[in-house]
């Protein structure tokens, strides 16, 4: 028989205001096995933990129940407190009477009744608990960073600086990401490439960093500390070791009509290309859809002109398999498609562009060599209208419900830069709200309005109307003046909502990392674990977790690196002992459990059994406890009841249900 202690927490008034904590303690004392019960204001405090430890020692407790907040909050706190007092930590159970009870109920009597029931269930479980001992697994001292934008680059540099090997896997032919497409950065207006390229070079030159560009993660298996990842290195058709990056192949390539991804389709590139001048690595790739040699077999000009003999039309995709201790996801974002927003005439007029396209137009290496001009006729615009929140903060399901966070600031930046360089251009911004929280951000926006004379109008635009003469008519509302506005413009710029890179779904599935309804990766705790995914060993860096600007991305990238380093610094990890176990006497080797196991933790072996004097060989399931994550899928699917989860056995669960129904 267990000797159980029950500890009821007030959590200040969080629990005590709705639940009669004294009554819960009193009622608990009546339960079988309970020899001690008390309540206290903050059980998680040092004094509270000391009370638990004292009771364990004085009353020789063999198990305890803490009635408090969610186990996600303090299970570890109480387990280690118990361990220090000599109790096996798996003899501790939490009855969640805060999130599951006091916070969601108003009536004290009813809430108290429920708290007593929850305590009773936990007591019933502890009565059947057995001490468990965690196993150990080794940590591979190498990290994988998925995505080579500023988030991934910063994370990789920080991990590498701490002395660990890091691999960056980047889908496109070069690292650099979205930041490499930007012209200037707010609020200091420094040139994006000027601050990014040194980081790119640092990552490329770092002896601890290996960069796989034009590569994708193909498969992930294993678990925290011991992931195995297959990386597909797509064929570049150019030998990276031989190529000198001279660029002659790109000049001579006769197929020059492919839209440049880097310039957002505003101009064209050759079939063999590096996305931009500062690309790392400076090794081109061949776009097989556009390459004449690949399509017709005739051409081969790049091969002829290449002095280094680097062109290799026979190159094949290559799979690299590597082991990692930690994985950081830094897959970034893209702007949304504007198909649901035809009222802004984006698909009808070349002079309606997105803000990211404007970055390329403003950039000296962009399609207009940095001259501000209309893409339809190359004329210098006199009137430019910016429309904010295109697809952001959308109440219906056409766009995104969230604020994209960066648009107010980059729109102010664009408006200011245009007014500065071209004082003859009038700039109008339509906005719902201007949101500028951030260091020196509001001052920046006010400069746009006060010093640069940008005309901000509070109100949304209903329609952009292309005129027969090529101008655009912007029909909107001025909510402060209560007026309809019809404004003629030469160019319209849409602050288009951002969304996570579409490929992130695939990656999240491979990592069993959770994702929210907007495809952003979910953090483990919104406030306290913002860079950890709920999947152990997987960390989040940059916009894949939620909209953010460059300074925030870099800060989060560093934070994700620190968490990864903290993991890699350990030689061994304790494994969760709450794993499945098969009873060989009951198992008939039917394979049902192996079919549902998401972690591939179940295999089969033949054993000799003596069944009532008959010796026979039988096939039975065996669980690899290093791989088992304790999800319990096998225990519910097993038709003969042979599979059981340690710490959550069928008997324990039924005992809990019985206690609740009693």
């Amino acid at each position, binding site marked *: 028989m267990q000797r159980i202690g029950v500890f009821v927490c007030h959590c200040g008034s969080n629990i005590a205001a709705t639940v009669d904590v004294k009554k819960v303690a009193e009622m608990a004392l009546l339960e079988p096995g309970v020899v001690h019960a008390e309540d206290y204001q903050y059980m998680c405090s040092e004094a509270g933990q000391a009370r638990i430890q004292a009771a364990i020692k004085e009353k020789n407790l063999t198990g305890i129940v803490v009635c408090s907040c969610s186990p996600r909050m303090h299970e570890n706190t109480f387990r280690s407190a118990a361990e220090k007092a000599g109790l096996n930590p798996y003899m501790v159970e939490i009855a969640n009477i805060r999130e599951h009870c006091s916070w969601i109920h108003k009536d004290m009597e009813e809430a108290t009744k429920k708290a007593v029931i929850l305590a009773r269930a936990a007591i019933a479980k502890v009565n059947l608990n057995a001490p468990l001992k965690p196993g150990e697994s080794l940590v591979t001292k190498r990290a994988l960073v998925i995505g080579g934008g500023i988030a991934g680059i910063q994370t990789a540099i920080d991990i590498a600086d701490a002395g660990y090997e890091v691999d960056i896997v980047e889908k496109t032919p070069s690292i650099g990401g979205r930041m490499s497409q930007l012209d200037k950065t707010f609020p200091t207006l420094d040139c994006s490439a000027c601050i990014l390229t040194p980081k790119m070079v640092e990552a490329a030159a770092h002896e601890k960093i290996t960069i796989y560009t034009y590569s994708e993660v193909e498969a992930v298996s294993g678990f925290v500390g011991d992931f195995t990842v297959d990386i597909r290195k797509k064929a570049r058709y150019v030998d990276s070791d031989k190529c000198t990056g001279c660029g002659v192949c790109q000049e001579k390539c006769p197929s020059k009509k492919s839209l440049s991804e880097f310039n957002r389709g505003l101009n064209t590139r050759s079939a063999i290309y590096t996305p931009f001048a500062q690309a790392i690595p400076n090794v081109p790739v061949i776009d097989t859809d556009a390459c004449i040699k690949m399509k017709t077999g005739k051409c081969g000009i790049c091969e002829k002109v290449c002095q280094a003999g680097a062109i290799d039309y026979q190159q094949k995709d290559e799979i690299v398999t590597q082991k990692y201790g930690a994985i950081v996801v830094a897959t970034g974002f893209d702007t949304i498609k504007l198909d649901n*927003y*035809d*009222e802004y*005439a984006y*698909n*009808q007029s070349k002079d309606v562009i997105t803000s990211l396209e404007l970055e390329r137009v403003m950039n000296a290496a962009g399609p207009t060599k940095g001259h501000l001009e209309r893409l339809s006729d190359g004329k210098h615009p006199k009137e430019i209208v910016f429309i904010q929140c295109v697809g952001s903060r959308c109440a219906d399901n056409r766009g995104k419900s969230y604020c994209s966070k960066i648009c107010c600031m980059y729109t102010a930046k664009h408006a200011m830069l245009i007014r500065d360089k071209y004082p003859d251009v009038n700039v109008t911004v339509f906005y719902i709200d201007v949101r500028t929280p951030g260091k020196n951000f509001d001052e920046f926006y006010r400069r746009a309005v006060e010093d640069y004379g940008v005309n901000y109008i509070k109100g949304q635009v209903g*329609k952009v*109307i*292309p*005129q*027969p*003469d090529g101008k655009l008519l912007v029909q909107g509302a001025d909510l402060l003046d209560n007026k309809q506005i019809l404004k003629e413009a030469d160019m319209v710029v849409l602050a288009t909502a951002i969304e996570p890179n579409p490929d992130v779904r695939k990656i999240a599935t491979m990592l069993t990392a959770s994702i929210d309804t907007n495809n952003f990766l979910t953090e483990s705790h919104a406030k306290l674990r913002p860079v950890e995914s709920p999947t152990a060993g997987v960390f989040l860096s940059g916009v894949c977790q939620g909209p953010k600007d460059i300074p925030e991305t870099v800060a989060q990238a560093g934070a994700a690196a620190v968490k990864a380093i903290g993991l890699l610094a350990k030689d061994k990890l304790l494994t969760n002992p709450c794993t499945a176990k098969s009873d060989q006497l009951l198992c008939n080797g039917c394979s049902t459990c192996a079919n549902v196991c998401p972690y591939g933790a179940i295999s089969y072996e033949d054993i000799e059994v003596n069944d009532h004097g008959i010796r026979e060989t039988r096939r039975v399931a065996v669980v690899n406890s290093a791989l088992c994550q304790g999800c319990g899928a096998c225990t519910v699917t097993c038709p003969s009841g042979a599979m059981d989860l340690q710490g959550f056995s069928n008997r324990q669960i039924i005992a809990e249900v019985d206690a609740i129904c009693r």
Partner: protein
Amino acid sequence: MKYSYYPGCTLKNKAKDLDAYARASALALGFELEEIEDWQCCGGVYPLGTDEIASKLSSVRALNEAKVKGQDLVTLCSACHHVIKRVNDDMKNVDDIRTRANNYMQLEEPYAGETEVLHFLEVLRDKVGFDKLKEKVVNPLKDKKIGAYYGCLLLRPGKVLGFDNPENPTIIEDFIRAIGATPVVYPYRNECCGGYISLKEKEMAKNMCDKIVDSAEGFGAEMLITACPLCMYNLNKSTEGKIPVVYFTELLAEALGVKEEVEI
């Protein structure tokens, strides 16, 4: 192929041609519009009040008659189509309206939005197919630059009408191409003509239509086509004969070579 057909009041008076050309064209294309019996006026305006049941009943009667015959219900006038389509959506999806309308109707079997409502243009696009229509054209209307005028009733609310993309529709342009003419895309083609406001504030309706006509002309349209008698009325006040405004069915009949047979 037979469809139940709801012509509506205007098509029996001012807009007889819209109706007559449609029937003749339908036969030439191999389907028949079977006018339902004892139809009543749709009311002309969809009643937005959720407790307003009586004025929805004429639509429910028409819809139920098509259901009993096991046919889709075809409409032609934009206003009728709008009202009937939205009432049908209510009958399918709004419990309260369905229950109360059926309490009035006392049908043998309650009506719950089973009938599919199709605008004549949707029949051409989805049932006949514009490719097939093109094959049946004997008199392609070459050299005609035509601006499609959609108005608002066919397109909005987009989710209920499900007719086309309300911000950038293409169905009438595709129709124009099918009969051999050249469509002129202009941005005001889905803006409101003012509708019934022309009864009360003539100037306002004229202003609204002037924008539409100017925009269409500016982009090179030599003719406007519409499916709506009220739009046609308002547009004609604005164009004052400068550019013709005709029903799309008239051009259809002309392209199919059956226009001369039609007596109005």
